[in-house]
């Protein structure tokens, strides 16, 4: 699936998007966060404050316990500060 990163999450990871292939044990948004955090210290730093991470599945806000099954795009970002 396509993973997108925004704002300081993007900056810490060092890229705006990438293709990820998660193992079958990764079922929810929270699982993706945990799995990405284990990749290296940049990802770990990006996701260290789990409470500050918002996610979207196929461009719709998703809770951390939402299943990712079927989604083609997952995005991670801090709380919104537009408007």
């Amino acid at each position, binding site marked *: 699936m396509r993973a997108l990163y*925004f704002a*300081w999450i993007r900056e810490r990871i060092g890229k705006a998007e990438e293709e990820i292939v998660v193992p079958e044990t990764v079922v929810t948004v929270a699982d993706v966060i945990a799995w990405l955090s284990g990749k290296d210290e940049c990802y770990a730093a990006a996701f260290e404050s789990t409470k500050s991470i918002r996610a979207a599945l196929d461009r719709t806000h998703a809770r951390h316990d939402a299943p990712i099954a079927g989604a083609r795009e997952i995005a991670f970002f801090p709380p919104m*500060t*537009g408007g």
Partner: protein
Amino acid sequence: MDPAAIVRVQAEPFSIEAEIARLTRGRTDLGAVVTFTGLCRDEGGALAALEIEHYPGMAEEEIGRVVAEASARWPLEGVVVVHRYGEILPGDPIVLVVTAGRHRGEAFAAASFLMDYLKTKAPFWKKEHRRGAVPGDWVAAKAEDDAAAEKWRG
């Protein structure tokens, strides 16, 4: 009939009168038009510029969902939302909401609701570039914005 709903995400500035005209031109059944313009505010003169990042595609879709929610709550005759991204200088406009209705009550309530929801749901992030400071700082989300959105529930 659904009201006219126009949502745009753009780098360019906008014209408030041109956006109002999209809703009102040729109509004589409207009694009230409310606009909200959010400006780049410089607290204390230290801000050089804001940089606004957004999630292309989702930004438009999410604003559209918020507009649909407002249209379901109030009998609106038209809505425009324009949100800018990119570099914004102090004093420049960032976001515009226009609501048109037959009466003022629904136009005021819907514009206020739209802003409260856009603040917490539309995928935009502000980075402040301060004079002399490198790099900039990401603006932290405000608890009061969450509270403002929360008050429309229930």
